[in-house]
């Protein structure tokens, strides 16, 4: 069983880097899929993000580490899909 979809509610500092940089960093841990980031709310110093990751395999530990290195914090995991690898019954 592999993690194939994950929706994360996160917070990142404002103005240090943009969501494209973060999406590019996170994409390294999503095999054969995509990363989508939407800014949900903007504060004086922080931005609330909805991050959707979809792919054949998502490395959650890598995602956590990439977000930590960027100074972004995971607030909650809103959705997760774990599927059987293709071809298996």
């Amino acid at each position, binding site marked *: 069983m592999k993690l194939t979809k994950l929706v994360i509610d996160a917070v990142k*500092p404002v103005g*240090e*880097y943009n969501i494209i940089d973060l999406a590019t960093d996170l994409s390294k841990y999503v095999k054969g899929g995509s990363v989508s980031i939407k800014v949900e709310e903007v504060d004086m*110093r*922080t931005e609330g993000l909805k991050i959707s990751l979809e792919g054949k395999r998502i490395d959650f530990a890598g995602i956590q580490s990439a977000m930590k*290195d*960027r*100074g*972004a914090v995971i607030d909650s995991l809103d959705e997760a899909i774990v599927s059987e690898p293709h071809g298996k019954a």
Partner: protein
Amino acid sequence: MERLKSRYSIIGLSDGLFIGLGLSVGVSFFSSYNFTLAATLLGGLTSALSNFFSTYNAETFATAERLQEYKHLLFLKEYQPKKLIKERNARSINYSFITFGFTLIGSVFVLIPYILASIYEVNSLQTAAVASFILSLIGLGVMGGYNSESSGKALRGALKTIGTGILISALSAAVGILLTTFLI
């Protein structure tokens, strides 16, 4: 980030021009061509180096402050975002080089007439000093105008910066005259 870059280039350039202008005017009263050139160049270089480290220290301090702020805002016990810190450090070094370079450019700009006088063997120190003074004021005027362009008061900004340059030169000249009269 682009605004910060231009802020540091303006800080460096104005610092270099003011220092170069003040030093060259003050030192020119000692009636030695080489002394004026060397003193202004050394003054400019020292100032450029000092600006490099000052900018780096200020930026490092700002990074530490900002990280503390984020730590507090994100309700974290520990906050060590490696990539964010690395990028901010790279930016600090970049800004430090910008101030260093522009301070050096500003102070060397003031010396152009002295260098030209040396190449074309013009032996009048006063001619070079006056040319340097005028060139510096033009440089300061252009920079002051550019600086105030966004607020729509370019002319006012240019005149204000030129006025500051004249004031610095007058003070420096007065000190130069006093030193040559009473000490040397």
